[in-house]
């Protein structure tokens, strides 16, 4: 209990991941959905950094750096799409994004 093992970090990561997944599945505001995706990516990063610390191998931290870069790219493109959508529909409700749905 008092010793902090990688399992603790994994469980923290899983909890944060689940919070993000609930946000993606339950909320309708697309901005909040993007934020939930950031939470999910951060959960993965916690896992990677904790295991890098555990095994004394820096590869995990390098992957975390890559994930941060990809998250930045995703945020930029996603918010660009959001702005284009808002310009057309005057809404940020994900239920109205039905053009490509069959």
């Amino acid at each position, binding site marked *: 209990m008092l010793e902090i093992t990688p*399992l603790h970090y994994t469980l923290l990561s899983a909890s944060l991941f689940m919070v993000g997944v609930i946000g993606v599945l339950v909320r309708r505001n697309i901005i909040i959905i993007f*934020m939930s995706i950031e939470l999910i990516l951060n959960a993965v990063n*916690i896992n990677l950094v904790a295991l890098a610390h555990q095994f004394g191998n820096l590869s995990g931290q390098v992957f975390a*750096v890559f994930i941060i870069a990809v998250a930045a*790219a995703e*945020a930029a493109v996603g918010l660009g799409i959001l702005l284009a959508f808002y310009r057309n529909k005057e809404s940020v409700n994900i239920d109205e994004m039905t053009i490509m749905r069959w």
Partner: protein
Amino acid sequence: MLEPLVFYTLAVLIVALGILVITARSAVHSVLFLVGDFLLIAALYVTLNAEFLAVIQIMVYAGGIVVLYLFVVMLVSLKHAPELHADSRRLGVIGMVLALVVLVELVAIAYVSSTRSAGATVTRAVQSFPVGVQGGNTEELGWVLYTDYLIPFELVSMLLLVAMVGAIVLAKRSL
């Protein structure tokens, strides 16, 4: 004694702020909770000897990405926020159930993997990065990043360039 205290405090705060992010009514509040969450995760990185990553987390996430979100929240009128109109809560319940299934799965995987490799290296608490090295974690990470992971690093820079062009094209009214 101090390490578990720090870990549990940070863990509880991180998850609590995460829950606040997805439950806040106003998107601006959500963004502010998100900043707090990122800062706490940076603190967690410091306790894991990943100082460079902690700084990157604060600069890129808390400083860059969140400001981008704030800009968009301000640009988008929130007068008719999506969740204000009544809707069937059924979909939300399904989402919660699916997420709980995912959580159970992840916890099971964590327990199984931690018990399976318990005899090997997992219980060995590695004092991983030599403190005496000049430059510390940043220099070590730089060496790994620019030798072993040089090509992925260049690919990520290309990805960022493409994403930048794509974001400009998407957000521009007319080319």
